[in-house]
Every structure is written in structure tokens, then in C-alpha cells.
């Protein structure tokens, strides 16, 4: 079966430094895949390449068999790649509801050719549903710039889901969250429909092992190992890499 996403020999260089050096990665439909590794291993860069924000210097990225290597982030988002950033990226002067509406607009279905406002109405319905789902319905009218960090994270998840993603790229979603918020995040990710595949970059290994069925370890821009959480836990090279590299 054709994988949902396939990266082949992806390379990114910053001058003489190879941030990614021929990375191969395969993510199947509905898979929960984690990307772990020491700081500077290239995890966020790889997410940037897959999302289209960073151009690959070499290699190819295929989405459901189609080459998307040369497409920018907008085109990839329209094809079903959603992203949650390391620092929650929201539009601060817009309200929480408007944030989700804007995120939903390119993906909302217009009910008829002669009803141009129909798309916005559909996006507004999506926003109301998603804000309730992430637990922010009462903050719908509050400017996103006034939300706390954890609330911004919830809002960004709603925004990502508004894009009807087939693949969700999560870049350290638990960073800066309290224990209770991390628990809620884990529960929310566990409840995501299986139609949505997840690529999770996270330093909290308890969260990774609890949520994901496949784990890839990156080190110095190269894949070190790929396997189930149990295999990765038992892998000596992985333990050694972490002992040397994790802050």
C-alpha cells in the first residue's frame, strides 16, 4: 500500500553544516509516528521540510504517492498537511473564533456558486465545533493575544484540525504546558480519528511511548533507528545517543 507520506534522501544544509543528511521516513495512513533525538538532531528541520516551510536541498517528499517536494506550505496544507508549531502560532489581533475561521476557510466547502458568504458560514460552524472540542468555547470572542500559553496551544490544535489534515505534524506540543494540560493534550491526541496520521516531535518520552506506535530516532541529521516503542527503549545505540546528547 502507498504510504501517506514518504521522505527519501532528504538533505538540508546550512552552509557547511548538514542539518539533515539523507533522511528516509515513511508514515502510513492513520499511523502515530514519533520523531525523537537529542537537541540539534534535525527534528524540527525535518518537520519544516515535510510541511514545506524549509526547502529540501536534496531528496524527495511524496504525499500519497505524489511528489510535493517543490510545493510551498500553502499548497501542502491544502493537500492535507497540518502543523502545530513549537511556539503556538496564532493571529494575535484576531479572536479565538476568528483564528479557527481563517484556518478553516481554504478547506471549507461552499454550498453553492451564488452564495459567496456560504464558505465563511461553513468555516464559522467548523470553528464553533472545534473550539468546543478543544475546550475553549467560552473564549471564542477573546483576542488570541490575550490567551495564556496553554490556551493558545489548544487554539492552535483547533486551527490545525480546521484544515482537515490527513497528516498532523506536531512540534513539541507539550512544551511549556503544566502537568494537567499535558494530560489533557495526551487525551485529545489519543481521541484523534484514525484517519489523521500524526508525526510527533517530543522530548517527553513518556508521552511519546504512550501515544505512538512507531518511533524514529534522529541523530546528527541521520536516522539512527526506527521501531516500536519497546524496541526503541531496548536499543543500546539509542540510549547512548540520548546519554550523550539530551540536555
Amino acid at each position, binding site marked *: 500500500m502507498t504510504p501517506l507520506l514518504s521522505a527519501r534522501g532528504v538533505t538540508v544544509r546550512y*552552509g557547511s553544516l548538514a542539518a539533515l543528511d539523507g533522511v528516509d521516513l515513511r508514515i502510513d495512513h492513520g499511523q502515530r509516528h514519533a520523531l525523537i533525538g537529542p537537541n540539534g538532531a534535525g527534528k524540527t528541520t525535518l518537520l*519544516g521540510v515535510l510541511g*514545506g516551510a524549509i526547502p529540501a536541498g536534496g531528496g524527495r517528499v511524496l504525499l500519497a504517492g505524489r511528489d510535493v517536494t517543490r510545493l510551498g506550505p500553502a499548497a501542502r496544507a491544502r493537500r492535507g498537511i497540518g502543523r502545530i508549531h513549537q511556539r503556538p502560532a496564532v493571529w494575535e489581533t484576531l479572536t479565538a473564533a476568528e483564528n479557527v475561521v481563517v484556518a478553516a476557510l481554504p*478547506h471549507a466547502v461552499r454550498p453553492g456558486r451564488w452564495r459567496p458568504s456560504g464558505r465563511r458560514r461553513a468555516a464559522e460552524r467548523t470553528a464553533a465545533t472545534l473550539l468546543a472540542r478543544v475546550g475553549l468555547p467560552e473564549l471564542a470572542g477573546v483576542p488570541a493575544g490575550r490567551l495564556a500559553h496553554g490556551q493558545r496551544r489548544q487554539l492552535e490544535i483547533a486551527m490545525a484540525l480546521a484544515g482537515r489534515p490527513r497528516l498532523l505534524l506536531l512540534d513539541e506540543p507539550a512544551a511549556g504546558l503544566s502537568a494537567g494540560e499535558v494530560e489533557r493534550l495526551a487525551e485529545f491526541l489519543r481521541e484523534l480519528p484514525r484517519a489523521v496520521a500524526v508525526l510527533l516531535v517530543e522530548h517527553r518520552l513518556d508521552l511519546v511511548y504512550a501515544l505512538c506506535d512507531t518511533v524514529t530516532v534522529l541523530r546528527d541529521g541521520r536516522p539512527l533507528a526506527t521501531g516500536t516503542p519497546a524496541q526503541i527503549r531496548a536499543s543500546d545505540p539509542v540510549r547512548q545517543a540520548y546519554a550523550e546528547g539530551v540536555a
Partner: protein
Amino acid sequence: MREQAVRALRRGVAAAVLAGLVLAPWAVDDYTAALLARTLALGLVAVSVALLTGVAGLPTLGQTAPYAAGAYTSAVLGGQVSDVGVVHLAVAAVAGAALAAVTVPLVVHARGVVVLMITLAVGELAVVLVGRWRSVTGGTDGLAGIAQVRPLWGMPVLATDRARYLYTLVVVAALVGLVLLVLRTRVGLLLRAGRDDEARLRASGHRVSLQVAGVHVAAGAVAGAAGSLLVVAQQYLSPADFGFETSALLLLGVVIGGAASVGGALVGAVLVVAGRDWLFGALPGHAPLVLGLAFVVTVYLLPGGGHRPPPVRGRLLPDVGTRRAAGERPAPTGARA
């Protein structure tokens, strides 16, 4: 509660200003009415500046270019096609939009201070072109003897300064209302989102370049329509109407009025032009100096006018190593983010 009170106060002030503008021609002499009409035309250009600078986050010093394109097209071509004001308006708006469309490739990928410099250059080039194309524009001698217009088919020509002022006021009110209406739709939402975080908008699947091009052309159309109003109000055109001083006045007006507020920009521009024309009469020849000082003081004391300073796409000032200090790597060549 406080927000509601502010909103009510704003509506009250807007209604009072509108009532004052309607009654003004009966309270002032013909010369002042003509001056007011010209000021309103400039106020409409300020609206186009606010649309780009405040709403879309694309700072500009070049809206005098579509303003000039609209004015000269209205005066030269409009006079040959029809003597109806709305036809002149349409022709001028198309000319302004067309000029803006030609410059889209220059601004669509630029951001921050680069846009400011490019638009400044476009505005200055337009003035040079107008000054040298003597056969059409009259060069630096100006274009005089422009025929009077009638607002609509079957209506009398605008023969008095009061009539020309009222025509200008109605058109400005209608176009500002139209701009405000459009900004209440998803167009306004997307422009504000792009101003806040363009990369995030792209990551959500929006075609940001198309939006930037669209708002640039729309602002050009508004400035072009303002050019037609200048022709009606002044009945004379010269390159001096579109020089750097005008650009700076517009930006000052927009900053004073609040860059993110279309109505505020209009009021700010009117105040600044009124200040130049009336208050500084006591200091002949020193008006630019006083305005320059006012600009510096305003930018330091009121960076966002009466509002929170709106974000700008890209940076207006160089970033002194903060990215490196935060431990970020430089973007690889051709990074899209």
C-alpha cells in the same frame, strides 16, 4: 463595558464629524470650500495608505503614483469620453488599479522597509514621468482648463465650489463606506491575519501572494478614484500635487489617525492637510519643517496613533542579532517560511 463606551463615543464623534462636513460649505467661503474638497480627496488617498499600511501591514510611501495616474487619466481621457463624474471616477479607479497591478511584481515578495523603499521609488518615478511627459500632462507647467463635470447623467454641471465640495464629500463617504464594508467580510479577516503572521497564514493553506496583490491593486483603485476627485476639486493638476511632500503628509495623517483605522486615517489626513494650509499660514515657508517635527514627535509619542501599533509584515528596522542570540540558525537559501 468600557469597549462599548469607546465604540459609542467613536460613533458619536464620527456622526458629529460627518454633520460638520455636510454643513461646512454653508459656513465657509468658496476658497475654503475648494480647499476642503481637495483635502477630502487627499483623505481618500490616506484611506488607501491605511488599507495597505495599517490593515494589510504593508507600509507604503507610493500611493501618490496611482493617485497621479487616476488624476491625469481622469483629466485627459475622462474629458474625451464623457463629462459625467462617475465615469471619470471609474476611469480613474481603473488607471490607479492598473498602475498598482504593474508594480505588483515589485512589492508582492518584498516586506517591511523594502516595500517602503520600493513604493517611495515608484512614487518618485511617477512624479518624474508626469513632469517630463509635457504633451499629455503639461509637464511642470501643469494641466489647466479642465472641463467641469456633472455627477450623473441628466444632472447639472458642478459649477460652484460648494457643489464640487458636496460631490467630493458624497463620493468619499460612499467609497470609505464601501472599504469598511469589504473589511467586515472575510477579506478583512485574512488581511489582518496576514499582517499578524504571514507564515502561519501560508501554513493554513492560504494563497498569501494573491491576497497581497489583491489589496495592492484595490488600494491603487481607491487612490486613483481620489485622483479624479482632485481634478474636480482643483480643476488644475501639476506634478507638485504628487511629490514626496504629499506622500509624507499622507503617512503622517495615517499615523496620527491610527494606521489600522480607515476612518482614523481619513480624519488624520484631513487634520494634517488643514494644519499645513491654515495653521502654518503664520510661518510662510516653514510648513515642511514644522510637519517634519510633527512627524518625528508623533512617531515617538504615538507609534500607533490613537490605537495599538499594528504589526508590519517583515521588519522596518534591522534585527541586531536577536535571532542568533535566541540560538536559531540562519534559514537555508530559498527558505519559504
